[in-house]
């Protein structure tokens, strides 16, 4: 196990270095001169050569690429991503204030999807091929095929225009301050509910099918027959013996869903004007705000790397065959 962990960590280290190189290359080689853009944003159409040179030095743009990379990496390791080209604020602050909104979304989506997927998966596996299994499977498969942003657009039209129930954008309504406390709570919940649902519904389908498949596999094994033979109720067999064995792979699958959730957050958060990481990336992109883009891309890739690593290690812990493969 120690050898496997060491090997896996070493490989992850190599990938980590690759991630920083790719991110740096992609963002720094892009066209456009951030120093020039910083000036034009200030409203000045012309500037002295001296001021321009000072700006270029400030952004490290006068150094060779390798030097720029080394300097950037040194700061990144200390979680210092510099200042935004757009408004001069620290990138760490900008990302930090957006993080809670996205984490709420990801956490909410995982909790919501598991809350639906586990009961559905259990019920489907109990009578595989039965009426519930067929209907739930069909409905979930249909839902799974609806792209997230298509669902989001339809929800916005129905809730925001046709029903005219509330304006589905942002964290809360404009009239939030005038609401009573229960009203405020309801307002937050309904804004949150729309976007979380858009994140969660494909996960429900995926996880429910995963749980069902794993349960069916486990249910054919000897120890299940033993459990049944000693007179345990079908419920106890299913929940306590079979389902426990599918928990670990389920955790890994949920962990591996993080990348898709992050990637999908760009469009969904922009659509719902949700002040999270995805919307920040979109805004930074349109403003050519390299430090923010670099920070977000590196952080996202590292999060994905950690999730994969964690999933691999848990799997190896549970299944010795993986370690020697």
């Amino acid at each position: 196990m120690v050898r496997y962990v060491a090997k896996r960590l070493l490989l992850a280290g190599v990938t980590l270095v690759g991630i920083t190189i790719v991110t740096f290359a992609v963002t720094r080689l892009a066209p456009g001169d951030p120093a020039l853009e910083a000036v034009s944003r200030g409203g000045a159409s012309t500037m002295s050569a001296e001021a321009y040179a000072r700006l270029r030095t400030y952004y490290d743009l006068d150094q060779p690429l390798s030097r720029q990379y080394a300097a950037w990496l040194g700061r990144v390791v200390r979680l210092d991503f510099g200042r935004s080209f757009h408004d001069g604020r620290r990138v760490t602050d900008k990302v930090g204030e957006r993080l809670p909104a996205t984490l709420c979304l990801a956490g909410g989506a995982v909790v919501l999807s598991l809350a639906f997927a586990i009961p559905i998966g259990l019920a489907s596996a109990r009578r595989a091929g039965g009426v519930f299994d067929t209907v739930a499977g069909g409905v979930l498969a249909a839902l799974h095929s609806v792209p997230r942003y298509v669902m989001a657009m339809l929800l916005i039209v129905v809730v925001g225009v046709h029903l005219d129930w509330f304006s589905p954008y942002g964290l809360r309504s404009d009239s939030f301050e005038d609401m009573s406390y229960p009203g405020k709570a309801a307002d937050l919940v309904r804004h949150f509910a729309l976007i979380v649902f858009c994140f969660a519904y494909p996960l429900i389908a995926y996880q429910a099918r995963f749980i069902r498949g794993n349960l069916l596999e486990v249910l054919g094994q000897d120890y299940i027959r033993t459990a049944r033979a000693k007179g345990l109720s079908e419920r106890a067999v299913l929940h306590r013996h079979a389902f426990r064995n599918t928990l670990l792979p389920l955790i890994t699958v949920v962990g591996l869903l993080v990348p898709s959730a992050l990637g999908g957050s760009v469009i969904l958060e922009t659509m719902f004007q949700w002040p999270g990481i995805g919307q920040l990336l979109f805004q930074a992109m349109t403003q050519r705000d390299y430090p923010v883009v670099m920070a977000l891309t590196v952080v996202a890739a590292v999060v994905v790397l950690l999730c994969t690593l964690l999933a691999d290690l848990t799997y190896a812990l549970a299944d010795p065959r993986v370690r020697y493969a």
Partner: protein
Amino acid sequence: MLQARAPRLWRRFRRRRLGMLSLAGLVLLAAVAVLRPVLASRLPIVCRYEGRLYFPGLVGVLRSVPFASAVVEESRPFSLPSFDVEKAVADSSFAVRALIPYDPLDYSSEVRARPSRQHWLGTDDLGRDVAARLVHGTAVSLKVGLGAMALAGLVGIVLGAWAGYAGGIVDVVVSRLIELVMCFPVFFLILAVMVWVEEPGVTHVVFVIGLTAWTPIARLMRAEMLRLRGSEFAVAARALGAGPVRVLVRHLLPNAMAPVAVTITFGVGHAILIEAGLSWLGFGVPPPAPSWGVMLRSAYDQIQSAPFLVYPPCVAIFVTVLMVNWLGEAVRDAADPRGESENLVPG
């Protein structure tokens, strides 16, 4: 081996009703994309004008074939910008108009018109006919979906097969590369690259999607090669004196193609979704072009004043992706009949 494999796959595939249905649907969609100059254009298909017969629509179809625009001449005077097509059609003794007699880029004063007899799906904020844009958007989506996955398939198959078959240092490098690319959330990577591009077009989108979508294909191909490399038929071929390239191309690749084809099929759906998403964000096909993502964006921007604009692109994206997914599932079931019981739950 390839010759014996394809008919068997087709025989098994033909029995899957949903698969055949979606294949038919996708062929229809491709026909719409190819025939778009006859389906949605202000130019008539056939027209007798001032005593001469003209075929502006048919010429348009021919000219949309790659490289044909050099050989087939534009249908003058109909193609001239200053030419009044409406008047010419009214004057002519005989004319067959396109099904939707509007160009996808033609503005009109009828802004945000609700669906009617004239404009089947209404008009957008610039008075452009939504149905015409939808028809022309089909071509963009299919081009991106098929083009990107052709590229991704090529890169993925070559790299994956090479890594799996050669092993050693090649395998280590390619595996690291796969893991590296997979670490980036797709949208983050694509967006980061798309800011490079000063004036994005369909070709850029194809390349960017293709060069990020090859990893699952390469990984699968590598695993298949590792599995097949030591198999008896490979050893037999080698014993008969076949060189490594021959063993790889003639014996191993055909046996690994079926699962890879499944992954590529699903990938087409993904690529179409990514293109629409990118265009919605403004980093894909640029706005006047009739892409479904661009249409979705303009619907989003005026959702209060013209909510009916939301539905056409939504339905088009959903139906296309659904058919691609169904096709992928049918191909998967046909390629691996052992997995049949597992597929009681569709999706």
